[in-house]
């Protein structure tokens, strides 16, 4: 086994470029998944069955099929319908959409965890529906689910390498490009593997601490 520190040094500038793209995709993907997830969770509580049923079926479908195939779907099918995005945008949409079907369940659990007394108090005070949600239910529900949402951010981080398959140059994409140009596979791949651990392990420790503070 040979380990070449020069290769590591040469790879590092590409690594930082890749890290930046990975973090961008992660941030945008999180925003989309948090927003859409809340939309799905709220529409699953709609009184009309014709709202709940399609949303439930569609999210179930997206959750149980591979993100990779969904990525290909968006990347190759949207242009056929004359909708063109950059590869990164397509990837962010796919990740955001995929994980919104998970965050939706998190929100649902959070909303169901709000004690019934809160609903009754809102009714007793004659609060309109909108205000009941925005001022009473959601603030309590969201506070509870922050750590669980954070876990999905870490999971999303670990799925960003898939964007490589649709030509996005995130960390794995950069590593593969470098490997193919220089015929050195060990160093770049190991560097990004270690980088993922160095990011996700402290993040999960942080979340555990946050969980102790927020969820009681």
């Amino acid at each position: 086994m040979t380990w070449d520190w020069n290769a590591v040094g040469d790879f590092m500038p590409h690594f930082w470029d890749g890290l930046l793209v990975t973090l961008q995709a992660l941030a945008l993907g999180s925003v989309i998944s948090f927003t859409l997830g809340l939309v799905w969770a709220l529409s699953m509580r709609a009184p009309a069955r014709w709202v709940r049923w399609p949303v439930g079926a569609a999210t179930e479908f997206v959750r149980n099929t591979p993100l990779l195939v969904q990525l290909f779907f968006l990347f190759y099918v949207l242009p056929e319908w004359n909708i063109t995005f950059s590869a990164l945008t397509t990837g962010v949409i796919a990740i955001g959409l995929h994980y919104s079907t998970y965050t939706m369940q998190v929100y649902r659990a959070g909303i169901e965890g709000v004690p019934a007394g809160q609903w009754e108090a809102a009714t007793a005070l004659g609060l309109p529906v909108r205000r009941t949600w925005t001022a009473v239910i959601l603030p309590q529900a969201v506070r509870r689910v922050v750590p669980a949402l954070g876990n999905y951010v870490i999971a999303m981080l670990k799925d960003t390498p898939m964007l490589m398959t649709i030509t996005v140059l995130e960390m794995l994409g950069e590593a593969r490009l470098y490997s193919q140009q220089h015929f050195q596979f060990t160093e770049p791949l190991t560097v990004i593997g270690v980088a993922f651990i160095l990011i996700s392990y402290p993040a999960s420790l942080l979340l555990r601490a946050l969980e102790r503070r927020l969820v009681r």
Partner: protein
Amino acid sequence: MTSGLWKLVLEGIWVTVQLLFFSALLAGAMSFLAGIARTSRRWTVRFLAGFYTEVFRGTSALIMIFWVYFVLPLAFGWQLVPLWAGTLALGLTYGAYGSEIVRGALNAVDPAQREGGIALSFTPWQRMRLILLPQAVPEMIPPFSNLLVELLKGTALVSVMGMGDLTFSANLVRLALQQSAEVYTYVLLIYFVIAFLLTRLMRGLERRLKAGIGKEPARGKAAREPEQAETTGVGAGAGAAAGGGAS
């Protein structure tokens, strides 16, 4: 689609199912090994198991696959057959997630059960085999069922390395037909059906295992019910709460 292309898809499904089966076996073995090791009394065993879990949970499955395909042959001279390389990468990665499920379920067993085993002077292995595992395993099934679906979704990643699974054959068919929407819709539906069947299978397994230890008693057992509630009342509540947390 012509019959030749359908044949390609069927071969893809077969490879996906094989890969799913073998990596699920490896992941299951690793989850129990690491999960039980994390409840060990020796700190070295706990540390090693924890190290394995954090390393493989911390990195991405796709990077592991790249690593197994490209670094293992260069670094150690092990050139694995694609199926086994995919199995190794996926099994180790998802086994790390599974070990957390095993650990959570073992910790959720009522402590009085373990103490009972000690009082009866069972050896640690007997306690694990005869007292803890029979009660913990049924609680593990729902989270394992989720993990199995995640593993199924993970198998699609091997197509990146050119292994002819369902996703790979879908890409070939797309190149042949130039009808992306249709091809990928079919493939997504196939994955969905496999995931649905797996979930059903696991639900049946859970029902059988739970019936085996007298949880959710079948109709006609009403006479024994008060006795059960009395002995397992406290533990059942705690187990349910912890089980919910683990999933």
